[in-house]
Protein backbone atom coordinates (compact mmCIF):
# COMPACT_ATOMS: atom_id res chain seq x y z
CA UNK A 1 0.00 0.00 0.00
CA UNK A 2 1.15 3.53 -0.77
CA UNK A 3 -0.32 6.71 0.66
CA UNK A 4 0.65 10.10 -0.73
CA UNK A 5 -0.29 13.19 1.23
CA UNK A 6 0.10 16.92 0.98
CA UNK A 7 -0.28 18.82 4.24
CA UNK A 8 -0.67 22.57 4.09
CA UNK A 9 -1.40 25.54 6.29
CA UNK A 10 0.02 28.86 7.35
CA UNK A 11 3.33 29.22 9.13
CA UNK A 12 3.03 28.35 12.81
CA UNK A 13 0.29 25.77 12.40
CA UNK A 14 2.83 22.99 12.72
CA UNK A 15 2.35 21.53 9.27
CA UNK A 16 5.99 20.44 9.00
CA UNK A 17 5.82 18.75 12.40
CA UNK A 18 2.68 16.93 11.33
CA UNK A 19 4.42 15.59 8.24
CA UNK A 20 7.61 14.76 10.10
CA UNK A 21 5.75 12.78 12.75
CA UNK A 22 3.83 10.83 10.14
CA UNK A 23 7.01 10.04 8.26
CA UNK A 24 8.88 9.14 11.44
CA UNK A 25 6.07 6.81 12.55
CA UNK A 26 6.21 5.06 9.18
CA UNK A 27 9.96 4.62 9.55
CA UNK A 28 9.53 3.12 13.01
CA UNK A 29 7.12 0.59 11.51
CA UNK A 30 9.76 -0.40 8.99
CA UNK A 31 7.93 1.18 6.06
CA UNK A 32 9.44 3.20 3.25
CA UNK A 33 8.77 6.90 3.66
CA UNK A 34 9.77 10.26 2.30
CA UNK A 35 9.10 13.77 3.53
CA UNK A 36 9.55 16.68 1.18
CA UNK A 37 8.94 20.28 2.30
CA UNK A 38 8.18 23.36 0.30
CA UNK A 39 11.38 25.37 0.42
CA UNK A 40 13.02 28.66 -0.48
CA UNK A 41 10.91 31.35 -2.08
CA UNK A 42 7.89 29.07 -1.98
CA UNK A 43 7.94 29.38 1.81
CA UNK A 44 7.78 33.14 1.84
CA UNK A 45 4.42 34.72 2.36
CA UNK A 46 3.53 32.65 5.39
CA UNK A 47 2.27 29.43 3.85
CA UNK A 48 3.90 26.09 4.42
CA UNK A 49 3.30 22.67 2.98
CA UNK A 50 4.96 19.32 2.85
CA UNK A 51 4.53 16.09 0.94
CA UNK A 52 4.69 12.77 2.75
CA UNK A 53 4.69 9.33 1.20
CA UNK A 54 4.26 6.16 3.24
CA UNK A 55 4.67 2.92 1.35
CA UNK A 56 5.45 -0.76 1.60
CA UNK A 57 7.65 -0.39 -1.45
CA UNK A 58 10.59 1.76 -2.50
CA UNK A 59 9.50 5.31 -3.22
CA UNK A 60 10.49 6.79 -6.57
CA UNK A 61 10.12 10.53 -6.25
CA UNK A 62 9.25 12.25 -2.98
CA UNK A 63 7.45 14.95 -4.93
CA UNK A 64 3.70 14.45 -4.77
CA UNK A 65 1.89 15.88 -7.74
CA UNK A 66 -1.34 13.89 -7.40
CA UNK A 67 -1.96 13.16 -3.71
CA UNK A 68 -4.32 10.58 -2.24
CA UNK A 69 -5.05 13.00 0.57
CA UNK A 70 -4.77 16.69 1.19
CA UNK A 71 -4.82 18.23 4.64
CA UNK A 72 -5.96 21.85 4.54
CA UNK A 73 -5.31 23.59 7.82
CA UNK A 74 -6.45 26.95 6.44
CA UNK A 75 -8.58 28.23 3.61
CA UNK A 76 -5.71 29.18 1.31
CA UNK A 77 -4.45 25.62 1.37
CA UNK A 78 -7.84 24.27 0.37
CA UNK A 79 -7.89 26.59 -2.62
CA UNK A 80 -4.35 25.68 -3.59
CA UNK A 81 -4.54 21.89 -3.37
CA UNK A 82 -8.18 20.88 -3.83
CA UNK A 83 -7.77 20.38 -7.55
CA UNK A 84 -4.69 18.17 -7.17
CA UNK A 85 -6.22 15.28 -5.19
CA UNK A 86 -6.77 12.10 -7.14
CA UNK A 87 -10.28 11.01 -7.97
CA UNK A 88 -11.72 9.19 -4.96
CA UNK A 89 -9.15 10.81 -2.68
CA UNK A 90 -9.75 12.51 0.65
CA UNK A 91 -9.56 16.17 1.65
CA UNK A 92 -9.22 16.86 5.37
CA UNK A 93 -10.42 20.30 6.33
CA UNK A 94 -9.70 22.11 9.56
CA UNK A 95 -13.32 23.17 10.04
CA UNK A 96 -12.40 25.44 12.95
CA UNK A 97 -10.85 27.84 10.47
CA UNK A 98 -12.39 26.87 7.14
CA UNK A 99 -16.13 27.33 6.60
CA UNK A 100 -15.90 26.53 2.93
CA UNK A 101 -16.63 23.06 1.63
CA UNK A 102 -14.92 21.04 -1.06
CA UNK A 103 -16.44 21.91 -4.41
CA UNK A 104 -15.47 18.69 -6.18
CA UNK A 105 -17.92 15.78 -6.17
CA UNK A 106 -15.36 13.04 -6.86
CA UNK A 107 -13.47 13.31 -3.57
CA UNK A 108 -14.40 12.73 0.04
CA UNK A 109 -14.45 15.62 2.47
CA UNK A 110 -13.54 15.01 6.10
CA UNK A 111 -14.11 17.93 8.47
CA UNK A 112 -12.20 18.07 11.73
CA UNK A 113 -12.67 20.98 14.17
CA UNK A 114 -8.98 20.74 15.02
CA UNK A 115 -8.54 24.06 16.80
CA UNK A 116 -11.67 23.67 18.90
CA UNK A 117 -10.67 20.20 20.05
CA UNK A 118 -7.16 21.41 20.80
CA UNK A 119 -8.55 24.27 22.84
CA UNK A 120 -10.70 21.87 24.83
CA UNK A 121 -7.48 20.10 25.69
CA UNK A 122 -6.02 23.42 26.78
CA UNK A 123 -3.43 23.68 24.03
CA UNK A 124 -4.66 25.47 20.93
CA UNK A 125 -1.35 24.86 19.20
CA UNK A 126 -1.95 21.13 19.23
CA UNK A 127 -4.52 21.46 16.43
CA UNK A 128 -1.97 19.87 14.07
CA UNK A 129 -1.83 16.75 16.21
CA UNK A 130 -5.64 16.53 16.38
CA UNK A 131 -5.69 16.64 12.60
CA UNK A 132 -2.92 14.07 12.27
CA UNK A 133 -4.83 11.71 14.57
CA UNK A 134 -7.78 11.97 12.22
CA UNK A 135 -5.58 11.44 9.15
CA UNK A 136 -4.05 8.33 10.71
CA UNK A 137 -7.45 6.83 11.50
CA UNK A 138 -8.84 7.52 8.07
CA UNK A 139 -5.85 6.55 5.93
CA UNK A 140 -4.39 3.78 8.11
CA UNK A 141 -1.02 4.88 6.79
CA UNK A 142 0.54 4.17 10.20
CA UNK A 143 -0.55 2.94 13.64
CA UNK A 144 -1.70 5.53 16.15
CA UNK A 145 0.61 4.00 18.73
CA UNK A 146 3.66 4.53 16.50
CA UNK A 147 2.83 8.20 16.26
CA UNK A 148 2.32 8.49 20.02
CA UNK A 149 5.60 6.72 20.68
CA UNK A 150 7.45 8.78 18.10
CA UNK A 151 6.32 12.17 19.38
CA UNK A 152 9.22 12.67 21.74
CA UNK A 153 11.62 12.00 18.88
CA UNK A 154 10.33 14.79 16.71
CA UNK A 155 9.27 17.45 19.21
CA UNK A 156 11.76 20.23 19.79
CA UNK A 157 13.20 20.51 23.29
CA UNK A 158 11.05 23.54 23.88
CA UNK A 159 7.89 21.67 22.87
CA UNK A 160 8.62 18.69 25.12
CA UNK A 161 6.65 20.40 27.88
CA UNK A 162 3.58 19.76 25.74
CA UNK A 163 4.32 16.09 25.09
CA UNK A 164 1.32 14.75 26.98
CA UNK A 165 -1.20 17.16 25.56
CA UNK A 166 0.07 16.38 22.08
CA UNK A 167 -0.44 12.68 22.73
CA UNK A 168 -3.97 13.40 23.89
CA UNK A 169 -4.56 15.53 20.81
CA UNK A 170 -3.51 12.64 18.55
CA UNK A 171 -5.93 10.34 20.35
CA UNK A 172 -8.80 12.82 20.25
CA UNK A 173 -8.35 13.39 16.55
CA UNK A 174 -8.12 9.66 15.95
CA UNK A 175 -11.38 9.08 17.83
CA UNK A 176 -13.08 11.90 16.00
CA UNK A 177 -13.30 9.70 12.90
CA UNK A 178 -15.90 6.96 13.09
Amino acid at each position, binding site marked *: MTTKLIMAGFGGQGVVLMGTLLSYSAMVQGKH*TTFFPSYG*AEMRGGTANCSVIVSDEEIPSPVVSVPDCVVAMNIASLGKFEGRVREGGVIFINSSLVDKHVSRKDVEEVRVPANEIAEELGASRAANMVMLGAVIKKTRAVELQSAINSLEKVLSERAMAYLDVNKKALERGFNEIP
Partner: protein
Amino acid sequence: MAQERSLMKGNEAIGEAAIRAGCRFYAGYPITPQNELTEYMSRRMPEVGGTFIQSESELAAINMVYGAAAAGARAMTSSSGPGISLKQEGISYLCGAELPCFYANIVRGGPGLGNIAPAQSDYFQATRGGGHGDYRVIVLGPSTVQELVDLTMLGFELADRYRNPAMILGDGILGQMMEPVVMSDAIEYDASPKKEWALGSSEGRSKHLITSVRLAPGTLEKHNMHLLEKYRKVEEDEVRYELYEVDDADVVLVAYGTAARVAKAAVAMSRQNGGIKLGLVRPITLWPFPKTVISDIAKDKPDILVVEMSLGQMYEDVLLSVCGKAKVSLLAHTGGGLPSEAEIVETAKRAKSSNEAIEVYPSVD
Protein backbone atom coordinates in the same frame (compact mmCIF):
# COMPACT_ATOMS: atom_id res chain seq x y z
CA MET B 1 25.73 0.38 17.54
CA ALA B 2 25.10 2.70 14.63
CA GLN B 3 22.44 0.52 13.08
CA GLU B 4 19.46 2.53 14.28
CA ARG B 5 17.45 4.22 11.56
CA SER B 6 16.87 7.92 11.86
CA LEU B 7 14.80 10.28 9.76
CA MET B 8 17.11 12.88 8.27
CA LYS B 9 16.99 15.65 5.77
CA GLY B 10 19.42 15.06 2.90
CA ASN B 11 21.40 18.23 3.52
CA GLU B 12 21.84 17.44 7.20
CA ALA B 13 22.68 13.83 6.46
CA ILE B 14 25.62 14.98 4.32
CA GLY B 15 26.81 17.13 7.22
CA GLU B 16 26.63 14.34 9.77
CA ALA B 17 28.27 11.86 7.41
CA ALA B 18 31.07 14.34 6.78
CA ILE B 19 31.68 14.75 10.51
CA ARG B 20 31.76 10.98 10.88
CA ALA B 21 34.20 10.80 7.97
CA GLY B 22 36.52 12.99 10.02
CA CYS B 23 35.78 16.31 8.37
CA ARG B 24 36.94 19.02 10.74
CA PHE B 25 36.80 22.09 8.52
CA TYR B 26 33.82 23.54 6.75
CA ALA B 27 33.59 26.89 4.98
CA GLY B 28 30.48 27.87 3.07
CA TYR B 29 28.19 30.64 1.94
CA PRO B 30 24.37 30.47 2.05
CA ILE B 31 22.51 29.45 -1.08
CA THR B 32 19.23 27.59 -1.51
CA PRO B 33 18.61 24.63 -1.65
CA GLN B 34 21.59 23.56 0.46
CA ASN B 35 21.36 25.95 3.44
CA GLU B 36 20.51 23.25 5.98
CA LEU B 37 23.95 21.76 5.39
CA THR B 38 25.72 25.02 6.18
CA GLU B 39 23.49 25.51 9.21
CA TYR B 40 24.07 21.96 10.40
CA MET B 41 27.83 22.42 10.20
CA SER B 42 27.64 25.67 12.17
CA ARG B 43 26.03 23.70 15.02
CA ARG B 44 28.00 20.50 14.75
CA MET B 45 31.58 21.60 14.05
CA PRO B 46 32.15 23.27 17.43
CA GLU B 47 30.88 20.10 19.14
CA VAL B 48 33.66 18.04 17.58
CA GLY B 49 36.35 20.67 17.93
CA GLY B 50 36.31 21.51 14.23
CA THR B 51 36.13 24.80 12.39
CA PHE B 52 33.06 26.34 10.79
CA ILE B 53 33.40 29.56 8.82
CA GLN B 54 30.62 31.39 7.05
CA SER B 55 32.81 32.91 4.38
CA GLU B 56 32.35 36.22 2.61
CA SER B 57 31.86 34.48 -0.72
CA GLU B 58 32.10 31.13 -2.41
CA LEU B 59 35.52 32.16 -3.70
CA ALA B 60 36.75 32.64 -0.18
CA ALA B 61 35.10 29.40 0.97
CA ILE B 62 36.88 27.19 -1.55
CA ASN B 63 40.18 28.97 -0.92
CA MET B 64 39.79 28.45 2.83
CA VAL B 65 39.22 24.78 2.04
CA TYR B 66 42.38 24.88 -0.09
CA GLY B 67 44.32 26.19 2.91
CA ALA B 68 42.74 23.79 5.39
CA ALA B 69 43.32 20.82 3.09
CA ALA B 70 46.93 21.88 2.63
CA ALA B 71 47.33 21.89 6.40
CA GLY B 72 46.15 18.27 6.43
CA ALA B 73 42.52 18.55 7.53
CA ARG B 74 39.63 16.72 5.97
CA ALA B 75 37.94 19.83 4.64
CA MET B 76 34.74 20.50 2.77
CA THR B 77 32.40 23.07 1.35
CA SER B 78 28.99 22.96 -0.26
CA SER B 79 26.84 25.09 -2.48
CA SER B 80 24.43 25.06 -5.38
CA GLY B 81 25.15 25.76 -9.05
CA PRO B 82 25.81 29.52 -8.97
CA GLY B 83 28.14 29.13 -5.99
CA ILE B 84 29.87 26.08 -7.42
CA SER B 85 30.59 28.14 -10.55
CA LEU B 86 32.51 30.59 -8.38
CA LYS B 87 34.30 27.76 -6.63
CA GLN B 88 35.65 26.41 -9.90
CA GLU B 89 38.67 28.67 -9.51
CA GLY B 90 39.69 27.02 -6.27
CA ILE B 91 38.78 23.53 -7.47
CA SER B 92 41.16 23.92 -10.39
CA TYR B 93 43.91 24.97 -7.96
CA LEU B 94 43.12 22.05 -5.64
CA CYS B 95 43.49 19.66 -8.58
CA GLY B 96 46.67 21.32 -9.80
CA ALA B 97 48.22 21.27 -6.33
CA GLU B 98 46.89 17.73 -5.69
CA LEU B 99 44.97 18.55 -2.55
CA PRO B 100 42.06 16.42 -1.36
CA CYS B 101 38.75 17.95 -0.42
CA PHE B 102 35.09 17.10 -0.55
CA TYR B 103 32.19 19.25 -1.69
CA ALA B 104 28.53 18.93 -2.49
CA ASN B 105 26.60 20.63 -5.26
CA ILE B 106 22.90 20.54 -4.42
CA VAL B 107 21.90 21.48 -7.92
CA ARG B 108 19.17 23.99 -8.74
CA GLY B 109 17.79 25.02 -12.10
CA GLY B 110 20.06 27.13 -14.34
CA PRO B 111 21.55 28.89 -16.26
CA GLY B 112 22.07 32.11 -14.34
CA LEU B 113 20.14 32.54 -11.15
CA GLY B 114 17.60 30.12 -12.65
CA ASN B 115 15.34 28.75 -9.97
CA ILE B 116 15.68 26.69 -6.82
CA ALA B 117 13.91 23.63 -8.14
CA PRO B 118 15.74 20.29 -8.42
CA ALA B 119 17.81 19.86 -11.59
CA GLN B 120 20.74 17.90 -13.01
CA SER B 121 21.95 20.63 -15.29
CA ASP B 122 25.38 20.95 -13.67
CA TYR B 123 26.41 17.54 -15.01
CA PHE B 124 28.79 18.93 -17.62
CA GLN B 125 30.29 21.34 -15.12
CA ALA B 126 30.91 18.54 -12.64
CA THR B 127 32.09 15.76 -14.91
CA ARG B 128 34.24 17.83 -17.25
CA GLY B 129 36.19 19.49 -14.49
CA GLY B 130 34.33 22.77 -14.55
CA GLY B 131 37.25 25.15 -14.19
CA HIS B 132 40.34 25.85 -16.27
CA GLY B 133 42.98 23.30 -17.14
CA ASP B 134 43.35 19.58 -17.76
CA TYR B 135 41.86 17.92 -14.70
CA ARG B 136 39.09 15.74 -13.35
CA VAL B 137 37.05 15.67 -10.18
CA ILE B 138 35.57 12.46 -8.77
CA VAL B 139 31.80 12.90 -9.09
CA LEU B 140 29.35 10.83 -7.07
CA GLY B 141 25.65 10.79 -7.93
CA PRO B 142 23.51 9.66 -4.97
CA SER B 143 19.82 8.91 -5.37
CA THR B 144 18.67 8.49 -1.77
CA VAL B 145 19.41 10.14 1.55
CA GLN B 146 21.13 6.91 2.58
CA GLU B 147 23.38 7.23 -0.43
CA LEU B 148 24.13 10.84 0.42
CA VAL B 149 25.55 9.47 3.67
CA ASP B 150 27.43 6.55 2.14
CA LEU B 151 28.87 8.53 -0.75
CA THR B 152 29.91 11.41 1.49
CA MET B 153 31.95 8.96 3.56
CA LEU B 154 33.32 7.42 0.37
CA GLY B 155 34.03 10.86 -1.12
CA PHE B 156 36.40 11.78 1.69
CA GLU B 157 38.17 8.42 1.34
CA LEU B 158 38.61 8.75 -2.41
CA ALA B 159 39.72 12.36 -2.12
CA ASP B 160 42.48 11.39 0.30
CA ARG B 161 43.44 8.27 -1.63
CA TYR B 162 43.93 10.15 -4.88
CA ARG B 163 44.80 13.59 -3.47
CA ASN B 164 42.06 15.08 -5.60
CA PRO B 165 38.71 16.76 -4.90
CA ALA B 166 35.66 14.50 -4.81
CA MET B 167 32.11 15.78 -4.95
CA ILE B 168 28.49 14.86 -4.63
CA LEU B 169 26.21 15.96 -7.44
CA GLY B 170 22.81 16.07 -5.75
CA ASP B 171 19.73 18.14 -6.40
CA GLY B 172 17.11 20.13 -4.53
CA ILE B 173 14.98 17.08 -3.87
CA LEU B 174 17.80 15.04 -2.36
CA GLY B 175 18.92 17.98 -0.24
CA GLN B 176 15.48 18.89 1.03
CA MET B 177 13.79 15.54 1.51
CA MET B 178 13.80 13.44 4.65
CA GLU B 179 14.22 9.69 4.45
CA PRO B 180 15.19 7.01 6.93
CA VAL B 181 18.97 6.54 7.09
CA VAL B 182 21.44 4.40 8.95
CA MET B 183 24.52 6.39 9.89
CA SER B 184 27.89 4.70 9.71
CA ASP B 185 30.12 4.75 12.74
CA ALA B 186 32.52 7.65 12.89
CA ILE B 187 36.00 6.83 11.69
CA GLU B 188 38.74 7.07 14.26
CA TYR B 189 39.97 10.42 13.13
CA ASP B 190 43.19 10.52 15.11
CA ALA B 191 44.10 7.05 13.88
CA SER B 192 43.76 7.94 10.19
CA PRO B 193 47.03 8.00 8.24
CA LYS B 194 49.02 11.19 8.58
CA LYS B 195 49.37 13.22 5.43
CA GLU B 196 53.10 13.30 4.98
CA TRP B 197 52.92 16.06 2.41
CA ALA B 198 50.84 18.52 4.47
CA LEU B 199 51.95 21.94 5.64
CA GLY B 200 52.85 22.36 9.29
CA SER B 201 55.91 22.35 11.44
CA SER B 202 58.97 21.85 9.26
CA GLU B 203 61.14 20.97 12.26
CA GLY B 204 63.51 18.14 11.35
CA ARG B 205 62.33 17.66 7.79
CA SER B 206 62.71 19.39 4.46
CA LYS B 207 60.22 22.08 3.57
CA HIS B 208 56.88 21.25 2.01
CA LEU B 209 55.73 23.27 -0.94
CA ILE B 210 52.18 23.18 -2.24
CA THR B 211 51.67 24.88 -5.54
CA SER B 212 50.00 24.68 -8.91
CA VAL B 213 52.50 26.94 -10.70
CA ARG B 214 54.83 25.11 -13.04
CA LEU B 215 56.41 27.63 -15.36
CA ALA B 216 59.71 25.94 -16.14
CA PRO B 217 59.62 24.41 -19.62
CA GLY B 218 58.25 20.87 -19.62
CA THR B 219 57.32 20.78 -15.94
CA LEU B 220 53.60 21.32 -16.41
CA GLU B 221 53.45 18.77 -19.17
CA LYS B 222 55.12 16.26 -16.90
CA HIS B 223 52.84 17.11 -13.99
CA ASN B 224 49.70 16.84 -16.09
CA MET B 225 50.81 13.45 -17.37
CA HIS B 226 51.20 12.41 -13.75
CA LEU B 227 47.63 13.62 -13.14
CA LEU B 228 46.43 11.67 -16.17
CA GLU B 229 48.01 8.51 -14.83
CA LYS B 230 46.16 9.08 -11.57
CA TYR B 231 42.88 9.69 -13.37
CA ARG B 232 43.36 6.46 -15.36
CA LYS B 233 43.78 4.61 -12.09
CA VAL B 234 40.54 6.17 -10.82
CA GLU B 235 38.78 5.09 -14.00
CA GLU B 236 40.11 1.59 -13.56
CA ASP B 237 39.34 1.10 -9.89
CA GLU B 238 36.53 3.37 -8.83
CA VAL B 239 33.64 2.99 -11.28
CA ARG B 240 30.41 2.30 -9.40
CA TYR B 241 26.95 1.64 -10.76
CA GLU B 242 23.76 -0.28 -10.07
CA LEU B 243 22.05 -2.64 -12.52
CA TYR B 244 18.32 -3.25 -12.11
CA GLU B 245 16.39 -5.81 -14.19
CA VAL B 246 18.74 -5.35 -17.13
CA ASP B 247 19.13 -9.01 -18.19
CA ASP B 248 15.84 -9.54 -19.99
CA ALA B 249 15.06 -5.87 -20.70
CA ASP B 250 13.92 -4.74 -24.12
CA VAL B 251 14.83 -1.14 -23.40
CA VAL B 252 17.59 -0.24 -20.94
CA LEU B 253 17.21 3.06 -19.14
CA VAL B 254 20.25 5.04 -18.02
CA ALA B 255 19.57 7.54 -15.25
CA TYR B 256 21.23 8.82 -12.07
CA GLY B 257 20.15 10.58 -8.90
CA THR B 258 16.53 11.61 -8.54
CA ALA B 259 15.79 10.76 -12.18
CA ALA B 260 16.99 7.21 -11.46
CA ARG B 261 14.48 6.86 -8.63
CA VAL B 262 11.67 7.60 -11.05
CA ALA B 263 13.24 5.40 -13.71
CA LYS B 264 13.43 2.50 -11.27
CA ALA B 265 9.75 2.93 -10.43
CA ALA B 266 8.97 2.97 -14.16
CA VAL B 267 10.79 -0.35 -14.58
CA ALA B 268 8.78 -1.89 -11.76
CA MET B 269 5.49 -0.38 -12.90
CA SER B 270 5.83 -1.54 -16.49
CA ARG B 271 6.75 -5.07 -15.45
CA GLN B 272 3.87 -5.21 -12.95
CA ASN B 273 1.43 -4.15 -15.63
CA GLY B 274 2.81 -6.70 -18.08
CA GLY B 275 4.04 -3.89 -20.30
CA ILE B 276 7.36 -3.33 -22.02
CA LYS B 277 10.31 -4.90 -20.21
CA LEU B 278 12.56 -2.16 -18.95
CA GLY B 279 15.85 -2.32 -17.12
CA LEU B 280 18.02 0.35 -15.54
CA VAL B 281 21.70 1.20 -15.41
CA ARG B 282 22.22 3.71 -12.62
CA PRO B 283 25.67 5.32 -12.67
CA ILE B 284 26.76 6.01 -9.08
CA THR B 285 30.07 7.49 -10.14
CA LEU B 286 29.40 10.07 -12.85
CA TRP B 287 33.11 10.53 -13.25
CA PRO B 288 34.54 8.00 -13.74
CA PHE B 289 31.53 7.13 -15.90
CA PRO B 290 30.56 3.43 -16.14
CA LYS B 291 31.23 3.38 -19.86
CA THR B 292 32.41 -0.23 -20.07
CA VAL B 293 29.25 -1.68 -18.60
CA ILE B 294 27.08 0.49 -20.84
CA SER B 295 29.18 -0.42 -23.84
CA ASP B 296 28.79 -4.14 -23.00
CA ILE B 297 25.04 -3.83 -22.57
CA ALA B 298 24.78 -2.01 -25.88
CA LYS B 299 26.25 -5.05 -27.64
CA ASP B 300 23.06 -7.05 -27.19
CA LYS B 301 20.43 -4.46 -26.32
CA PRO B 302 19.28 -2.50 -29.34
CA ASP B 303 17.52 0.20 -27.33
CA ILE B 304 18.86 2.50 -24.65
CA LEU B 305 16.91 5.42 -23.21
CA VAL B 306 18.67 8.11 -21.19
CA VAL B 307 16.45 9.88 -18.65
CA GLU B 308 17.83 13.06 -17.15
CA MET B 309 16.78 16.37 -15.62
CA SER B 310 18.95 18.32 -18.06
CA LEU B 311 18.90 18.79 -21.81
CA GLY B 312 21.06 15.91 -22.93
CA GLN B 313 24.20 16.19 -20.83
CA MET B 314 24.71 12.64 -19.53
CA TYR B 315 23.25 11.65 -22.91
CA GLU B 316 26.61 12.55 -24.46
CA ASP B 317 28.49 10.21 -22.11
CA VAL B 318 26.12 7.39 -22.96
CA LEU B 319 26.51 8.07 -26.69
CA LEU B 320 30.28 8.01 -26.27
CA SER B 321 30.09 4.74 -24.33
CA VAL B 322 27.74 3.05 -26.79
CA CYS B 323 29.68 4.35 -29.75
CA GLY B 324 27.00 3.55 -32.33
CA LYS B 325 26.43 -0.03 -31.17
CA ALA B 326 22.83 0.66 -30.14
CA LYS B 327 20.07 3.19 -30.62
CA VAL B 328 20.31 5.74 -27.81
CA SER B 329 17.23 7.87 -27.15
CA LEU B 330 16.71 10.71 -24.70
CA LEU B 331 13.96 11.81 -22.33
CA ALA B 332 14.98 15.21 -20.98
CA HIS B 333 13.50 17.61 -18.48
CA THR B 334 14.88 20.98 -17.51
CA GLY B 335 14.39 23.97 -15.26
CA GLY B 336 12.99 21.98 -12.36
CA GLY B 337 10.79 19.56 -14.31
CA LEU B 338 10.72 15.90 -13.26
CA PRO B 339 9.98 12.90 -15.44
CA SER B 340 7.04 10.71 -14.42
CA GLU B 341 6.96 6.91 -14.43
CA ALA B 342 4.23 6.85 -17.08
CA GLU B 343 6.16 9.23 -19.30
CA ILE B 344 9.27 7.04 -19.10
CA VAL B 345 7.33 3.89 -20.02
CA GLU B 346 5.60 5.70 -22.89
CA THR B 347 8.87 7.12 -24.24
CA ALA B 348 10.55 3.72 -23.98
CA LYS B 349 7.76 2.19 -26.07
CA ARG B 350 8.09 4.91 -28.69
CA ALA B 351 11.88 4.60 -28.75
CA LYS B 352 11.66 0.85 -29.25
CA SER B 353 9.23 1.07 -32.13
CA SER B 354 11.10 3.88 -33.84
CA ASN B 355 13.79 3.12 -36.41
CA GLU B 356 15.77 6.15 -35.38
CA ALA B 357 16.76 7.29 -31.89
CA ILE B 358 14.28 9.80 -30.50
CA GLU B 359 14.79 12.84 -28.30
CA VAL B 360 11.87 13.88 -26.12
CA TYR B 361 11.82 17.26 -24.44
CA PRO B 362 9.20 18.93 -22.26
CA SER B 363 6.29 20.39 -24.13
CA VAL B 364 6.05 24.11 -23.43
CA ASP B 365 2.84 24.99 -25.24
